[in-house]
């Protein structure tokens, strides 16, 4: 994260690894420890190798079955589930949809989404250690409960969190982030990885703008600096204002893959 450097520096003052002092520190240590008998073994492996390999397998399976996968991310309370409900209602007549919903320990979201008529698989990450994100192996398990031959669009509603889900590939085609205007226009700059990794931003709850000090221009400028050219849709999941553009974009992405 962007604050990483500060945290690291703070730690250095307590006598740990200063990046500037690193060479000296490491060197001194290495000589000392090698004398007492250590061997350095080159590894050079990505820590998330296992997840990425599984995501690649999922992506291949989705391609073979002709399924477009959308990974929807946001912080808790951004209106992701309502947005998804309204999106399904508009898109279902034309596309066969299914939903995988991640939640730490309730089925409230799954129950709400099941009303759309789309097959819904609920993942409670509680069983997997109360995770803050959906990893590829969890999605793979959920996918086993779906008939991929009967699905055009699979939407994965990730765990409400603007940090961790950005780090995990789940074999998706596109990623969208939902940011509600009640969260403040500073969020993109605070969570740049999420906004860089996503392909579109939904600025939700714009029906509340008259009651807030939310600076839309600042929000849009900030997003445009982090991810130049990324589409930003101003919507209200409550009133469905802005949905035509958002649904149009989503359907175009699905068509591009499935044609």
């Amino acid at each position, binding site marked *: 994260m962007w604050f990483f450097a500060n945290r690291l520096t703070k730690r250095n003052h307590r006598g740990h690894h200063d990046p500037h002092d690193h060479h000296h520190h490491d060197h001194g240590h290495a000589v000392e420890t090698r004398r007492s008998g250590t061997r*350095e073994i080159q*590894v050079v492996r990505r820590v*998330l190798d296992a997840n990425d390999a599984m995501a690649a397998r999922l992506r291949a399976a989705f391609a073979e079955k002709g399924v477009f996968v959308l990974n929807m991310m946001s912080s808790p309370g951004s209106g992701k589930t309502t947005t998804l409900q309204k999106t399904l209602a508009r898109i279902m007549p034309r596309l066969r949809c299914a939903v995988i919903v991640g939640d730490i320990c309730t089925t409230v979201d799954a129950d709400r989404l099941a009303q759309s008529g789309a097959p819904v698989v609920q993942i409670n990450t509680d069983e997997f*250690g109360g995770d803050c994100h959906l990893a590829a192996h969890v999605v793979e398990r959920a996918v086993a409960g779906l008939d991929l031959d009967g699905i055009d669009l699979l939407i994965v509603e990730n765990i409400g969190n603007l940090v961790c889900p950005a780090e995990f590939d789940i074999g998706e085609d596109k990623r969208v982030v939902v940011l509600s205007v009640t969260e403040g226009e500073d969020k993109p700059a605070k969570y740049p990885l999420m906004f860089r990794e996503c392909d579109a931003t939904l600025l939700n709850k714009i029906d509340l703008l008259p009651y807030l000090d939310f600076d839309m221009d600042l929000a849009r400028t900030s997003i445009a600096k982090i991810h130049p050219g990324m589409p930003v849709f101003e919507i209200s999941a409550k009133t469905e204002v802005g949905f035509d553009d958002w649904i149009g974009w989503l359907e175009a992405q699905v068509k591009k893959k499935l044609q």
Partner: protein
Amino acid sequence: MHEMGIAMEIVEIAKASIPADMHGAKIQRVNLQVGKLSAIVADSLRFCFDLVIKETPLEGAELVIEELPVVAHCKDCQHRWTVTEPVFLCPACQSGSLDILSGRELEIKSIEIEDED
């Protein structure tokens, strides 16, 4: 928040990297490279690492985290620069068409093992 899972992966990869001829050896240090754009908090990762290494060949090992800067390359004017704030626009030509050359790393570079010989 996902640092516990990351710490567990690090332990698995480090354990699997012990050469066959050093079976039973203790790992004393894990050298990790973390890009500044990664969603990793170093202090949290160290805290989790210290918890998950108990009763493994890494017990007591030190996690050395080398932080890598975010470096971008402009596809339009070929300018190369270090990104120091959340702005991904080329400072030379203002283009937003760029490649991230580094900053997303989360890699185990090496492990250091106690050598009996």
